[in-house]
């Protein structure tokens, strides 16, 4: 498990490097703050689906980061 986790973290780091990780100024974060950028844009709507998937699959969970971070606050 640990090697796989490290592999994913390595891939993340590689993606970060490949995409440049540009410095983004506060006034450039309008798109990042858009609701449509969130992993869960509508909690009520997507909560229903998430509940179904958690019940129906033996391998639920593990989605970790909430996917809303944009450094916009």
């Amino acid at each position, binding site marked *: 498990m640990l090697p796989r986790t490290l592999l994913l973290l390595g891939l993340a780091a590689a993606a970060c490097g490949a995409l440049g990780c540009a410095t983004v100024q506060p006034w450039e974060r309008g798109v990042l703050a858009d609701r449509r950028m969130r*992993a869960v844009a509508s909690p009520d709507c997507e*909560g229903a689906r998430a509940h179904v998937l958690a019940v129906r699959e033996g391998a639920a969970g593990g989605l970790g*980061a909430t996917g809303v971070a944009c450094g916009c606050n």
Partner: protein
Amino acid sequence: MAATDERATRLRWASAALALTLVAGPGAAADRVGGAVSYYADDNAVRVVSPRVSATVERGRATLDARAAVDFVSAASVDLVTAASPRGFEETRVETGAAAKWRASPLQTVGADASISIEPDFHTWRVGALAAREMFSRHGTLELGYGFSRSEIGRRDDAAFSRGRTTYDLLLGYSHVLGPRTALDVGSTLTLVDGFQANPYRWVRLYAPGGTLHATAVPEQAPETRWRSGTSLRLRTRLVPHLFGLAEYRLYADTWGVVAHTARLRATLGLGSEAWTLWLEARGSTQGAASFYRARYATFPSAPDLRTADKDLGPMWTALAGLHLEWSPPVTRLSALRFGVGGDLYRMRYLDYAFLTARTAVIGVFDVTTEF
């Protein structure tokens, strides 16, 4: 517990949940109030109607979320057949929860949450804590979370039956802003589940070697300890103006031997001066079997120490396709008002389960959200 007492208990919880939501509602100048009704139906005679409400209030450095949901379930599925029950069932589940966050400093947030879920024979309560810190000139956000939950499991036809289950969750997540239009999330959870994890209603059929008809059935028996881990990688980006994309991969593994891979793609398209938004989603997963899972236990007259009739612990794959259309009419007194309607088609394929090879479900949802 008598049926009337159960009903009264459920109504009390539902009333408390509704009151909590209303307290955080328009009278308190809530920032967001939303509600949804979802409907699940599959070709295995399971129907679930789930109304839910939620609200969010932001005051200064504090954010408070409250939510409540009720599941009205009716079923007469193969799950019941394997449990040797001639009838289906109807039951209600009530879940309510609240979460609070506090921005301790411009870069640090701490929070806590609590929830409770009540079914006639399954009660769960959960508490959790979360800390987040922004770093790298606010290009990165690190999250660390911990959760603890306890379940009390009963059985309707046996008042003396009582088992417990405790769950510990550890979450580590990191999000990074890659550019003005792109963010990356990496997350991992580690969960320890300790206690009774079989289904008290499920029976496992035992066959004589070479036999075609089962000789007897014994209660399901699962290990008392299960370590579960999931690691995910998610990319969020705006592809072109009005078109957003999300791609996600998740790897799951546990000490029961289940390994699963899940991929998800989502496209979000703004239409008509942003008044309309269309969400398109595709998701697929594949899963291996638990080490003690057998489609058929040909061990009679002895029974294996570990045995299950849970098809969700067998090899399977799933596919989901969904769309969701949202309309935001122009309003003056609210900062936003949104109506959404959507549906998913969800296909489950069981690769090694004798009583059911596939199941197809539809999930429909209607939701309304107001922001102040």
